[in-house]
């Protein structure tokens, strides 16, 4: 009872803030609403009893990804008059949403046994905590998939580095080890100076 009320509150807030993400004019506000909807998604995970997923959601999406989003969006040089012009993404949006909804309907109609998110109570894994269950699923049963996912991420990471790394000549670089290894004997020279007597 209490959980279902919470579920409706959280899902309403997710939808409302998701709507505000795409309608607000200021991109910083958009990102803030995006963060808010991540929060509520974490809340729904908590209601479903998946506390590990909820907190990982907070750590990864809110704590890292959205911070970098906000970081980038704040640095944008914004032209608000440009932003207020009407955009032409309506067709693309309708097509994408249509495909997504069709996919979901197909999934739920043809594979009804897959739609149940409630774990079978007789499952022997239920004696473990959430975290242990996820660990044994990912790292034991689906070990190869996990490795492949890791490789894909590695490729993506290297790709991002290759795309952004440019070696320019004529740039003065800092050599940390030479900076740290400076000492008095090498860098300070004491000279005897004789002062000429002024008249």
């Amino acid at each position, binding site marked *: 009872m209490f959980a279902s009320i919470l579920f409706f509150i959280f899902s309403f807030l997710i939808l409302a803030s998701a709507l505000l993400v795409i309608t607000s004019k200021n991109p910083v506000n958009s990102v803030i609403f995006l963060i808010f909807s991540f929060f509520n998604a974490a809340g729904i995970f908590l209601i479903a009893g998946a506390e590990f997923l909820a907190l990982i959601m907070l750590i990864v999406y809110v704590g890292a990804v959205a*911070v970098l989003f906000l*970081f980038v969006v704040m640095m944008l040089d914004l032209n608000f008059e440009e932003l207020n012009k009407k955009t032409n993404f309506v067709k693309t949006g309708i097509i994408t949403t249509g495909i997504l909804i069709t996919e979901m309907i197909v999934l739920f109609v043809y594979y009804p046994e897959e739609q149940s998110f409630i774990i079978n109570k007789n499952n022997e894994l239920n004696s473990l905590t*959430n975290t242990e269950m996820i660990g044994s699923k990912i790292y034991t049963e689906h070990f190869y998939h996990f490795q492949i996912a890791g490789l894909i991420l590695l490729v993506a990471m290297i790709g991002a580095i290759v795309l952004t790394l440019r070696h320019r000549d004529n740039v003065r670089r800092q050599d940390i080890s030479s900076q740290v290894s400076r000492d008095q004997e090498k860098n300070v020279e004491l000279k005897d100076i004789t002062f000429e007597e002024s008249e």
Partner: protein
Amino acid sequence: MEYILSILFIFLQSFLVIFAVLMMAYLGIYGERKLWAAVQLRRGPNIVGPFGLLQPVADFLKLLLKEPIIPDKANKIIFIMAPLVTCFVALSAWAVVPFAENWVVADINVGILYIFAISSLGVYGIILGGWASNSKYPFMGAMRSAAQMVSYEVSIGFVIITVLLCVGSLNLTDIVLAQKKIWFFIPLFPMFIIFFVSALAETNRPPFDLPEAEAELVAGYQVEYSSSFFLLYFLGELAATFLMCAMITILFLGGWLPPFDIYPLNVIPGVVWFMLKVAFIFFMFGMVKALVPRYRYDQLMRLGWKVFLPISLFWVVLTASVLFIFDLAP
């Protein structure tokens, strides 16, 4: 009825914890000022009240009674929201901290993840405040702070994983009880050092207080904040600092456990040991501020990404291997 009573009980506990944290902040700021004064051969606060003990109260009242100034071009909602976020986040993380055995508001089984998640949200207060002020120096401070806190979270995460490998549970009470034989700072000493330094960077404490570096950025993201908004930032930062002290205590110094489980030591209640350890770590934080000059920003990023990250990653692998080979894994 019983349901309402239990909710009231939780409220009462939360108020007690918040009161305890605020008392810690009060004594902490007084002790820190006295400590810095002693290091610099000054007297420190000594006018208001006996030994200057009421100085933080006087500062608090002064800040409360000042006029809050909101810049004209600032984004007002976010400007006011930002210090609230900092303070809220820093205080709410205390819900899962065990002060002694069973002395905890919410004994959830992913406690350490909860603290990690909540403390990673602390950056929002700073970055939003810096942006909403609509001014150059706060914005620079906010940018620095965002990059810095995200960088050091990575190594903090790996250190936490190392400890978790030795415990086999994410529950904070279990982490403390796993240290009955030996406190983790002995076998995991390099991780203890890395966590200590990363905690300094994560809470924007000196020598990593670049987001508010007075010499370059006036006061960083706090430039435009005055009166009670500034007070909220101040309290939030102190609460976050004490949270980091509590985390070091729980992860490495055996939480509420006495150093030796022998007669005169183990009759002292656990909460006293916990507070003593937190105070000791806070004293170390204060000494670092008193003794170490501020880092340069590129050195800070280098330390995080090129030194701490590889070392902590290596230690995760090493710890896992040792636990596996000698069959010590819990």
